[in-house]
């Protein structure tokens, strides 16, 4: 093959595609997309995505690094698995969406106030601190995430459910003050720290010139 052809192939094979293949879970599948559009058309939340999966895959191949990683789109995935079930090429699209979201989070590129990302952070903070999720704190945190006034409104709207849950002992208001913990919190924290080290080792650093 001539050098020109090689050059064109390398140009087409963008450095961002290389980056996604190296660092995003299931990212090696992105090149397999044949742009039929069944995933986008089958997505129940499709109309609310700025870029449907099919478009995200094309953007990755077109080296649109910033636009993809700063996008809100992959955070809209609810893991219904319609796309995976129907993709004619068998791409694990749900997993790729989660992989892209995780990678964007790692690089600190998540859009501000992204609700899925905010919830995820709260969940993780609660879990990693106590070794178990404090549901009451997360619930209250979500109610008040858009400010005090909105929080009061949210709480008022949900008060009947809340009272009923307390009555049937599904929720305990005392949990808000610390809450119960697991037996060995520091042991869990050590495990999580070690797991994080392994994860970090796997990440390849890209300066944008590879490929």
């Amino acid at each position, binding site marked *: 093959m001539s050098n020109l052809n090689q050059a064109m192939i390398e140009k087409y094979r963008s450095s961002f595609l290389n980056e996604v293949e190296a660092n995003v879970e299931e990212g090696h599948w992105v090149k397999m997309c044949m742009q039929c*559009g*069944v995933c986008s058309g089958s997505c129940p939340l*499709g109309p609310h995505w700025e870029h*449907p999966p099919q478009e995200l895959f094309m953007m990755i191949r077109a080296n649109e690094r910033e636009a993809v990683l700063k996008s809100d789109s992959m955070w809209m995935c609810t893991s219904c698995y319609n796309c995976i*079930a129907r993709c004619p090429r068998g791409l694990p699209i749900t997993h790729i969406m989660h992989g892209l979201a995780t990678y964007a989070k790692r690089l600190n590129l998540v859009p501000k106030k992204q609700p899925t990302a905010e919830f995820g952070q709260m969940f993780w903070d609660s879990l990693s601190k106590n070794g178990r999720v404090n549901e009451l704190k997360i619930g209250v945190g979500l109610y008040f995430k858009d400010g005090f006034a909105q929080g009061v409104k949210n709480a008022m709207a949900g008060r009947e459910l809340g009272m009923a849950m307390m009555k049937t002992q599904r929720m305990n208001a005392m949990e808000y003050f610390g809450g119960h913990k697991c037996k060995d919190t520091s042991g869990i924290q050590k495990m999580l720290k070690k797991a994080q080290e392994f994860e970090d080792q796997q990440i390849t650093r890209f300066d944008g010139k590879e490929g």
Partner: protein
Amino acid sequence: MSEAIATNQTILVVGGGISGLTAALEAAECGKQVVLLEKSPSVGGRVGQLYKYFPKLCIPTCGLEIQYRRLKANRNIRLISMAEVTDIKGEEGNYNISVKVAPRYVNENCTACGECGDAVEAEFDDEHNFGLGKRKGAYLTSRMAYPQRYVLDPRIIGTDDAQKAKDACKYNAVDLEMQEQDMELNVGSVIWATGWKPYDAAKIQPYGYDRFDNVITNVEMERMMDPFGPTGGRIQRPSDGKEPKNIAFIQCAGSRDHNHLKHCSRICCMASLKQTTYVREQFGDEAKSTIYYIDIRAIDRIDDFYQKVKEDENVSFVKSKVANIVDNKDSGNLILNGVDTEGYNRYANEHDLVVLAIGMESNVPAGVFPEGTAINEHNFIDFDPANGGIFGAGCSSDALDVNRATQNATAAALRAIQVVNRVAGQEG
């Protein structure tokens, strides 16, 4: 059957469609002895169900007629209809073939006068028309049936209808005592040409073929166009018989899909392009066609046909595989949902008839071939030394159009001839 009809210098051709007929004729016209088996009551296969060929838009029965004429004229071919191979044993130059022959209940006295068909009352779904119409319990598979001989549906045997058919026959051709026969053949080489069947459209759940009347398949559209077919040559909506004005064609329905057929069926792009010309032929400017596609695979000389269809203002193209179809219960119309690839626009387009460009599923059976026969993941017979003297022909070897199927069948005939020539050389 005590009569010796084959030796190890005989070529067995399984399947009497266009590929099997071609392979049998090419070998027989080279002077070889050929046994041609056909599972159904008539040869002709899928080609006999088509209205027109692409890209020349000529009538397929014309080509079939030529093959029939060659078949009738050739003493080297022995045609056995309603015969199915159940087992193949042996090796190149010496195969033992087990064959099961179903009873036709009509013998060679039949003149195809049709009196038995008139006398019988029971009706069944017409296989020739993919169930779009009904046929009698005593019937000729189609007007192009060869042999031109009636057949009784086994479901009427033992009923009054069977006796009515027998009583109606002036030529003593109806024989209700016929039994299934087992037959053993010794042959030198096998050409397997059992062709294809349309992929079961109901399996493509989001398209609702089993739920919506006005979702049809491309092969059903071919039957609608036949002047002697179930609709008398009219394209119409199955729900209300009305003329469609806005037809959608969905490409890759069941093909190139990891959930269905992985292979590209090759013919469906051209079939839909061809069928847009049917729409124009029938409705002129009164009806529009829209083709939803991933990519149009019209290669080499047939690309000219694609270019010509593209010039038609009533035909438009949407680069998108439709995600799902929902119906509008009041009108019987269908709403196609998806996202296109040229701009990523979400659409919900209403059409009054949807034609699924259904793919080709190989008819190669399991459990018949000797162990080790190379049959690939798409269920086509590979050309492989491991197969000895067994050769796939036409759509048993790959998804092919008629043109390529006959070329492929001719090649298979040549390979089989080489095998029996070697056998003849060894035996002197």
